[in-house]
């Protein structure tokens, strides 16, 4: 089954036109979540606040999974 991963890493959303093949939705979810975390590693140094989000669409175009990661920071005092 092909799944499409639309990702916004905080610098703007990118629509996935190609998709990636996974055997199950669970596998697509797990890899999607891991991808979000690894993109956060690359994106975090830019600023004190960032929200990364992910929509997974199936072949019919329906969003079957949605995830986000939010980073916030402050200097207290």
């Amino acid at each position, binding site marked *: 089954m092909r799944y499409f991963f639309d990702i916004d890493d905080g610098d703007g959303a990118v629509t*996935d036109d190609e998709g990636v093949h996974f055997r199950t939705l669970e596998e697509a979810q797990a890899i999607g979540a891991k991808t979000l975390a690894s993109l956060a590693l690359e994106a975090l140094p830019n600023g004190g606040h960032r929200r990364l989000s992910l929509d997974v669409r199936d072949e019919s175009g329906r969003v079957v999974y949605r995830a986000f990661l939010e980073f916030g920071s402050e200097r207290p005092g």
Partner: protein
Amino acid sequence: MAPSHVFDAHPLVQKLESIFALADDEKAAILSMPMQVATLRADQDVVRVGDSPSRSCIILEGMTATYVSTSKGRRQIVSFGIMGDTPDLQSLLLEEMDNSLSTLTPCTLGFVQHAVLRDVCTRFPRIAAALWRSTLVDAAIFRAWMTSIGQREGYSRMAHLFCELVARKRAVGLVEEDRCAFPITQTELADALGMTAVHVNRVLQALRSDGHIVLDQGWLTVPDWDRLVAVADFDATYLHVKENRPAA
């Protein structure tokens, strides 16, 4: 003795000549090594961890992947082999395989018995030196991959791999007009780059839309080599390709 260009058609001669100048009698010795030629389908293991082979292979055609699997079944591809490479030459001196080797595409492999390789290396010490140099370059490639995986972000990490493969293929005459075969799947790229397939897919689309690469039905074109090199932070020194080698 046959004319020099006959020797140069042998993939191993072509590979070694790209990094080490061989004399005609040395090329003839390589050419005369008995070789068992086998055709393999894609995704077939050639040797596995724990094997103790009595022969090593030369890639005559196609691409291979050298890989290690963790106990959880996760695969790290540690290098890609192209025409002329000897991806399991280490078994000549290290009895037990500590990595596996599989075909990435349909491959034609030439298997040479270790006894034959030992004999050729004894009679022609410069062939031994050339093979040594080749394994040292392989080690340099491992260092470059380690640096990329540890220190480069996905975008330049992938660009670096593209640069490396193009440079290696160019050295053995597999690049024509900035275009070469690129049969590596996204899953294989993911396993080589330490990225998820989804991340690979995203970075590939970005590299394409930024105009750094064109991928079309298994063929890679690099429209502007210098731009890709800059993006990849690529310095080809570690491949130690000889300049001014004779044209293939």
